[in-house]
């Protein structure tokens, strides 16, 4: 049963979403997810977690057993809002007898895009995804990557406010994946909201500002990337010389002293500087001060209760994520 909630400012506001297939398969057990307007939101989780089911509920392809929530301010199940949503499912199949141009026109017409705008949008998005020269070719001649590019263009033909992409870089080469990431950032700059479902955690880290981890039908973690990985932040200082004489003082700051270095957990800059001062005061030559943070994969592994994660040096550009 779906109930109408009050209008919200969230692009996606899912509350207590349940889905039971048949009588025994409880795919979603009370999912709560909020996606702000203008966010690039990533949904990740292991196989069978319920990610695709959740996305399909948003897109009305699946009826929830019980749910409250809205998408673009309209209740779940409201079909009218779909005119403002673009969607590309995983393993999509398009009619093979259509050309690229015909396919875009067809789906845009179903999305109620006026004819004149369909032509202009088709040209725009075919150019943008690098498929302009293939517009008159039947899509049964396309490669998997070309089909994926066309699928993304199809999802954007109605100038959606919310773009839902399930494995958008599937089948794309590295340059293609880079292009898609760039496209997603452009969409965000235009004020669109992007909802991504992907197994490629490194790619989610590069573009998403908020993520949710779905495990066994429930949200295990949700928040900005910083929130999810903040507690894992630690500083590693490598130096030359022995620190036995000041080991006690370093430990009182919370540092773990090792041979030729130390690890200081947490993001407390005051303690970091005190530790550096201590080392320098005692004539130790500091070689490197390096922040380290868990990756998204590390967080996922931890959530799944697998082997303890190991913090990795921070390598992603902080400019690509804003919180």
């Amino acid at each position, binding site marked *: 049963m779906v109930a109408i909630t009050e209008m919200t400012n969230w692009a996606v506001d899912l509350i207590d979403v349940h889905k039971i*297939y048949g009588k025994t398969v409880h795919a979603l057990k009370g999912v709560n997810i909020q996606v702000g307007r203008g966010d690039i939101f990533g949904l990740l989780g292991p196989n069978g977690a319920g990610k695709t089911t959740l996305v399909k509920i948003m897109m009305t*392809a699946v*009826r929830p057993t019980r749910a409250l929530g809205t998408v673009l301010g309209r209740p779940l199940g409201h079909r009218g809002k779909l005119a403002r949503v673009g*969607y590309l499912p995983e393993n999509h*199949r398009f*009619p093979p007898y259509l050309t690229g141009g015909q396919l875009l026109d*067809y789906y845009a017409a179903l*999305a*109620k895009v006026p004819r004149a705008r369909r032509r202009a949008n088709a040209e725009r998005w075919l150019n943008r995804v690098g498929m302009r020269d293939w517009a008159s070719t039947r899509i049964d001649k396309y490669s998997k990557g070309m089909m994926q590019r066309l699928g993304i263009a*199809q999802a954007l033909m109605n100038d959606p406010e919310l773009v839902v992409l399930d494995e958008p870089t599937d089948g794309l080469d590295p340059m293609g994946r880079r292009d898609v990431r760039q496209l997603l950032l452009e969409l965000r700059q235009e004020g669109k909201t992007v909802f991504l479902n992907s197994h490629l955690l490194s790619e989610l880290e590069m573009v998403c500002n908020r993520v949710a981890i779905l495990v066994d039908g429930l949200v295990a973690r949700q928040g900005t990337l910083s929130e999810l990985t903040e507690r894992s932040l630690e500083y590693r200082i490598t130096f030359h010389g022995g620190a036995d004489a000041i080991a006690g003082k370093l430990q009182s700051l919370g540092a773990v002293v090792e041979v030729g270095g130390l690890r200081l957990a947490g993001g407390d800059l005051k303690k970091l500087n005190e530790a550096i001062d201590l080392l320098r005061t005692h004539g130790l030559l500091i070689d490197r001060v390096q922040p380290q943070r868990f990756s998204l994969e590390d967080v996922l592994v931890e959530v799944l209760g697998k082997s303890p994660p190991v913090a990795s040096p921070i390598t992603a550009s902080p400019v690509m994520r804003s919180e």
Partner: protein
Amino acid sequence: MQFWALLVDSFRESRDRKIFWVMLILSVVGAGAMACVAFEPGKINLLFGMWEYDVARFTGPGGVLRSDLITTLVVEWLMDTLLGWIGVLLAIIATAGFIPAMMERGAIEVLVSKPIARWRLFLSKYLSAMVFILIQAAVFVLLTFLVAGLCWRTWLPAYLLAIPLVVALYSYVYCVAVLVAVFSRSTIAAVLVTLGAWVAFAGVQNLDDAFILFPDWQKQRTLYQIVHGARWVVPKTQDITYLAKKWTRAAYGTELVPTPDEEGRHLLDKAEAVEAERKAIPAYQSIGSSLLFEAALVLVAMWRFSRQDF
């Protein structure tokens, strides 16, 4: 806009299937073959003399068979055999895959994510199939209509009724394909079950006719009531071709007047009894009850499609 887009898509899908072109070619070939028929004193000449049929027993020696009578005979064969059986069979094979193709995994998710109500999506695809058969039937009927007029000098406006009648006949059977397709998502299952249902519909009608031909059978009251009741429920596929013949003959005031022997007379009496029984049922009852059956199946299919998880 949405319905038009679905219609155009269905047309493109049909055009991509070889059977669409096979049916068009058959229509042209059929009309061409008809154009090769000539009427000469005492005989019908086919394919420029390759085959001859003696019609003297109908006309007397040297007489020419009335062209409208001949035309009626040929037209009835066209409507009954070509359109009514072969044409509908080919149409079922050509269109049974429309719904399963739409419901394929990966394809249906994109469609139902568009702002179109599921019942509209379903109905649009269903009606697209009707348009497909309408085009095929119209091409064949119009071509043969023109051949009859231009080559045989006999214009048969009533023959054009075959177009809506064939579409109606097709729809009686296609509703089964649609229902099976929604539940199974299988083209093969849809075709096989539909053909079986078609045979069953005809079987019920024939069995009911048999009770008239052999009145003694009516002593088995329960069986007779079941069969007679079933005849009212199932689509009257054979009534369609019967109606087509009836209206065509009525348009020309012609009736076949054979001169059968004693055994032939006996059989003719029985056939006339069956025909009298059929004439007693108004056309609107026959067509109306068949359309009700069709509507029921389509509604069930539409309900299922609307509530299904994809």
